[in-house]
């Protein structure tokens, strides 16, 4: 639980800012002239009804979609679009709305895949599995085990993730993202389809990741209770337009937000 307070609760400098970003698919404006920022160390929620453009926004931030207009400032660097590789090397990790794991691989291998960018030894040593490459593999493995402990998934580390129940798959996916040691972690509906107990577990992991690793988090979530409890600041989208931005309590009482969720006659 966080004390509700004004937007100034955000602890650090701006880590990422999107300014006047627009994205359309054919005639559909998925994101329309949206601006907001994410500050270092905060948990930033992006909410809104179905089709509000939340996932599109996340896809713009990590480079899956290229916006037609606007600019993105990440760690002080201004660009008109991200590329997935730049986003990943720059320290942006993410999870997906419909879990996107490497289904044939074990939980451990999935998490190790998150270390890809941290591994730098050349092919030759890797083929021999000897020398520096072996040393490196061991170091990364230790890091992966830490994350496995953190997420309490020790007993499933050897299980191909395709066989795991949904809730655990979501947890492994979070683990893979954390293995990247990201500066900014994007979570697309981390609690979708979970029961109450699983939601509480997942909320705990999100908060701990924020506290313990100091990771800045932007998350999309539908469960209002979760959003109010977890986030420092909330941005609300509706039909691709930003309709509110502020502390959870503020946003909750905002008339435009209430209208968007309940629906009003226009």
């Amino acid at each position, binding site marked *: 639980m966080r004390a509700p307070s004004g937007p100034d609760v955000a602890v650090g400098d701006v880590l990422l800012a999107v300014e006047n970003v627009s994205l359309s698919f054919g005639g559909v404006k998925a994101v329309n002239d949206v601006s907001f920022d994410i500050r270092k160390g905060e948990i930033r929620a992006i909410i809104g009804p179905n089709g509000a453009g939340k996932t599109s926004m996340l896809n713009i931030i*990590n*480079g*899956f979609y290229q916006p037609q207009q606007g600019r993105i400032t990440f760690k002080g660097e201004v660009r008109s679009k991200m590329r*997935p*590789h730049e986003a*990943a*090397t720059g320290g942006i*990790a*993410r999870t*997906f709305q419909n879990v*996107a*794991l*490497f*289904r*044939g*691989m074990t939980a451990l*291998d999935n998490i*190790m*895949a*998150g270390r*890809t*960018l941290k*591994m730098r*030894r050349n*092919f030759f040593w*890797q*083929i021999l*599995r000897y020398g520096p*490459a072996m040393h490196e593999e061991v170091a990364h493995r230790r890091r992966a085990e830490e994350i496995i402990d953190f997420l309490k998934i020790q007993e499933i580390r050897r299980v*191909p993730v*395709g*066989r795991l129940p949904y809730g655990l798959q979501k947890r492994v996916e979070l683990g*893979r*993202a954390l293995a*990247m040691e990201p500066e900014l972690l994007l979570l697309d509906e981390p609690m979708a389809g979970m029961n109450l107990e699983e939601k509480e577990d997942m909320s705990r992991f999100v908060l701990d990741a924020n506290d313990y690793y100091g990771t800045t988090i932007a998350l999309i979530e539908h469960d209002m209770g979760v959003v109010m409890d977890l986030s420092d600041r909330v941005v609300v989208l509706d039909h691709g337009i930003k309709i509110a931005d502020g502390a959870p309590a503020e946003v909750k009482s905002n008339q435009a937000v209430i209208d968007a969720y309940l629906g009003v006659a226009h």
Partner: protein
Amino acid sequence: MGLLYQIFIDPFVQMGTAPDLFVQTLWEGIVGGMLYALIALGFVLIFKASGVFNFAQGIMVVFAALTLVGLYNAGVPAFLALGLTIAVMFGLAYAVERAVLRPLVNQPDIILFMATFGLTYFLIGVGEFVFGGDPKVMITDQLFLPKGAVTYKALGGIISVQKLDVAATVIASIMVAGLAVFFSKTRIGRALRAVADSHAAALSVGISLEQIWVIVWFAAGLVALVTGIFWGARSDVSFALDVIALKALPVLILGGLTSIPGAIVGGLIIGIGEKMWEFYWGPLIGGGTDAWFAYVIALVFLLFKPQGLFGEKIIERV
């Protein structure tokens, strides 16, 4: 009764009474099987990484062999020609990634499959244009590949082994083992499997699709070159070699499209089975069985074990 005896008893009696012929047939099966396995391996590498069934793999074998021989005939020293051919295969991998895969990323698999048809005819065209369409002789001597045969007196007869076949088997085994280790134990290997499972997730952890694709197409190109050298040495280098690539299809069905060990075991089963069947059972129906034997085996597998011997089990949660 006589027919049943001929089918079920007589072949085994022959195997027992003339073990030298049995071993000879077995050896020829193994050699043929290793070469089928090599071609299948080229398919598997690309299929694993990109989910694309690369129709052009057979032509890549011919193209690689043709480039090697063509360069040599144009006056380039043999080993320099080999190096240049490797460079050409790398260039091909790079070009395929740039011109074919990258513009078609996220398109349905069938589109990419059709694109490899285009690639096939492109390679045939370029190959014939640059090096000419007439059959050529593989430069085995110049590459210091052994020739001639060794004969052993053993098992009450004579067993004859082509030195070239021994070399082919050894080199193929080394290559296969190396690739298997590389793709199962290294970061690149993990990235490869990751790309095969989910493009989006692979991108999100910073795996570069472009890099992986170039690597696998290049690996497939190297495999094609080795295959081309040894197949070319057994017959000659021409576009007719392409038909042997079709033999890789039953091997793939047997071994599973995604399994490197599967390609090897599948290749050996088809190679040995084909030779044995032709030698012991072929005469009963007038011979010529190796044209269809592999496909019948594949059909049986499709009916009873469609994912192949080593294919990834399809995990379906309901």
